[in-house]
């Protein structure tokens, strides 16, 4: 029997499979490892960021700073490596530390000052974007033999597709995050907080450290997404990735995670990212459609999923009421 709580995920998976099938019917070329490889590579940074967002939304919060942190990271890395000649690994490490601390500070403010996540991360969004402008308003190109090596690295699929380093990074992040969410105490605590903060606290969940951990993880993954974005574009630009946090939220919600928290799967977010990528690929294949159709389809899908979630809640409440009636 399908658990009602997995229903949104299964629906998402079904929609992806059907949509991909329809695409293939129209453009048989879309069924190739090349397309799949590109789908993964092109959406790697979004996917990594969306993983962080999944934890945040599962806990009942929201993180609006993601796009800005990605931009900050990419500019920071590009300036360090491109202009100052710092070794990429050092730059990566530095930027991951900074973004993680940034996230933990936001988490601490949310927890200990009692400010809603929306407000705290909105401030974080402006702060990170401003810091990115402060470093450079230009697009900073980046070139280093190690970065070239990472960009050039790939596994070849049969059929000519490439599983690039970026795609591998994203897949690893999703795999690790799935285990963290499903099989660790931290993951269980995230679900508990998202279900009911007060109850979780009374049950002895360390709400403070978990909240800080959630936003630190989101910060860390935003930083990692920024590194992926830098590698993807070979540059850093402070105006880039505006609104990526909203794409990430869309991926999480389409992936079946309840916006109010407590219910959802990391794997769902993966499918959510793939659906967004699929729409873009379709538009490229079609050639005549404006890329803004992506936004329209995402908008429609979001509506569908929010309605679906309401429907599931309504249905399970009704079933519970019916059961109670039977007991009486």
């Amino acid at each position, binding site marked *: 029997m399908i*658990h*009602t*709580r997995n229903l949104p995920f299964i629906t998402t998976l079904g929609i992806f499979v059907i949509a991909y099938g329809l695409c293939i019917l129209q453009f048989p070329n879309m069924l190739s490892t090349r397309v799949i490889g590109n789908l993964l590579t092109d959406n790697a940074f979004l996917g990594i960021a969306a993983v962080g967002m999944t934890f945040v939304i599962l806990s009942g919060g929201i993180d609006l700073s993601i796009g800005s942190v990605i931009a900050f990271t990419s500019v920071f890395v590009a300036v360090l490596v491109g202009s100052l000649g710092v070794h990429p690994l050092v730059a990566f490490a530095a930027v991951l530390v900074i973004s993680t601390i940034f996230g933990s500070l936001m988490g601490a403010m949310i927890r200990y000052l009692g400010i809603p996540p929306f407000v705290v991360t909105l401030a974080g969004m402006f702060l990170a974007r401003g810091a990115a402008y402060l470093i450079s308003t230009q697009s900073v190109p980046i070139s280093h033999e190690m970065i070239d090596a990472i960009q050039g690295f790939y596994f070849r699929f049969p059929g000519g597709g490439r599983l690039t380093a970026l795609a591998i990074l994203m897949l690893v992040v999703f795999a690790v995050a799935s*285990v963290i969410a*499903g*099989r*660790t*105490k931290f993951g*269980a*605590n995230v*679900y*508990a907080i*998202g*279900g*009911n903060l*007060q*109850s*979780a*606290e*009374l*049950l*002895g*969940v*360390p709400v403070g450290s978990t909240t800080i951990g959630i936003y630190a993880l989101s910060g860390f993954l935003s930083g990692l997404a920024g590194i992926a974005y830098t590698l993807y574009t070979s540059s850093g630009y402070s105006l880039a990735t505006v609104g990526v946090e909203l794409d990430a939220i869309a991926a999480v919600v389409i992936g079946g995670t309840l916006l109010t928290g*407590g*219910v959802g799967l990391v794997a769902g977010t993966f499918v959510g990212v793939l659906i967004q990528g699929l729409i873009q690929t379709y538009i490229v294949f079609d050639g005549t459609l404006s890329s803004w159709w992506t936004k329209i389809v995402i908008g429609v899908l979001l509506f569908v999923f929010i309605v679906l979630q309401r429907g599931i809640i309504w249905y*399970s409440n009704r*079933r*519970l009421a019916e*059961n*109670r*009636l039977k*007991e*009486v």
Partner: protein
Amino acid sequence: MSNIVSPLEAHSQPATAALLEARGIGKSFLGIAALDGVDFTLQRGEIHALLGENGAGKSTLIKILTGVYSLERGTIRLDGVDVKPADVAAAQALGIGTVYQEVNLLENLTVAENLFLGRQPRRFGLIDKREMRKRSAALLSRYGLDIDVDALLSSYSVAIRQIVAIARAVDLSGKVLVLDEPTASLDAHEVEMLFTVLRRLRQDGLGIIIITHFLNQVYDIADRVTVLRNGRLVGSKPIADLPRLDLISMMLGRELQHITGDRQVSADSVASDAQPPIRFAGYGKRGSVAPFDLDIRPGEVVGIAGLLGSGRSETAFLLFGIDRADSGTASVDNKTIALTSPETAIANGFGFCPEERKTDGIIGDFSVADNIALALQARQGWAKPISSRERQALAESFIKSLDIRPADANRPIKLLSGGNQQKAILARWLATEPRLLILDEPTRGIDIGAHAEILKMIERLCADGMSLVVISSELEELTAIAHRVIVLSDRRHIAELAGDQVTADNIMQAIAAPARTEAA
């Protein structure tokens, strides 16, 4: 635990030292003492009821014992050792577990995840779900529960959730179990199920503290009673030495004017030949309440009795236009009216105090005055705002006449006790001078003092000619105030009792009467 006991202590303590001994517990909020030098002793294998009116300090004491509030003054000894739990987790580790009334477990997690949250069995550093399932099933089977531990908690009834919560608390703590109003939303059968579990735990030597408003249940299960009033200890006695009347006067600190259960009204006080101004004929809604006839005369209190889920609240929803009837007519003064929404009901002079005071009744962050003015404003229409001076005057007059405490119209209503919130909601409707006021469980979760005041208020209102419909699960309450009682069962009105017929026995017999079978 500790073998090192000072000679003095060893001397002063008998061999059977108490499980939990709290001495001189004190706590203040913003300079106001919530608890003042309270002593509390719990023995092993004892069910100890902690009683008192709202604001007596029960919750504060419990929260100090369970680590939610820090200990300010006094000492807590557990097994003869001084303890000072810093937080809930620390209290659990010491052996004190708590099950709260409303927020206890997480509905979005499975039963097994709830049982082992924070202490999941692990294998290779990761949660071992199979082991967790196995242990959960084993744990619950000791409580006589054979349920799918992999199903979401939200798919089970409140009673089962309570037992799961108790199983978790006992498994986690194992010495002291604190139950804060565990039976508030259970029906009689579920209460019995819960009590069976508690009696078994008592045999196992656990110390159980129970807070409840239901005195019958206290006599049913408790061994000992401790009563608090206004943050002070009134007394602590074995239940066997404590007649009900003494217990109530301990709780109220004054002799009762009349104990609910005395019949105060007679049908004669309502002019029965008067034309009924509010009449519902064949009124019903498919799947909600079967069609019923109901006439309500001025100055009459119509009680509605029935078990949980019998259609009591649904009847109120129909009368107030929250649910739309799909059959029958409603008329006021012989004019047919269409009750399509609460707005139309208010326009016809109806008022409704819902059962879920916290979620459906009050707007917590608004002041008492704002909450009181709400219905009057809705009736006047938003185009004609009530000035803040009018609102203040209105609020102050009701605060005075209903004795709402503290008497501060500008205090956010969420800071008031349950009884005072209920009075403020009553004031909200009284301000609109309704001809019909529907009260759904007006005294639920309210202490005895406020309880008696609200019943008195109901009597006064109907003496003034207002009609009331009162829904209550407390039969004594209905028999004390209602001129007539409608009995519901299985979502239909099965009996109507009037005059001398209105007794608790008759109501129970009506409920217990075999339900009429209906084709399809």
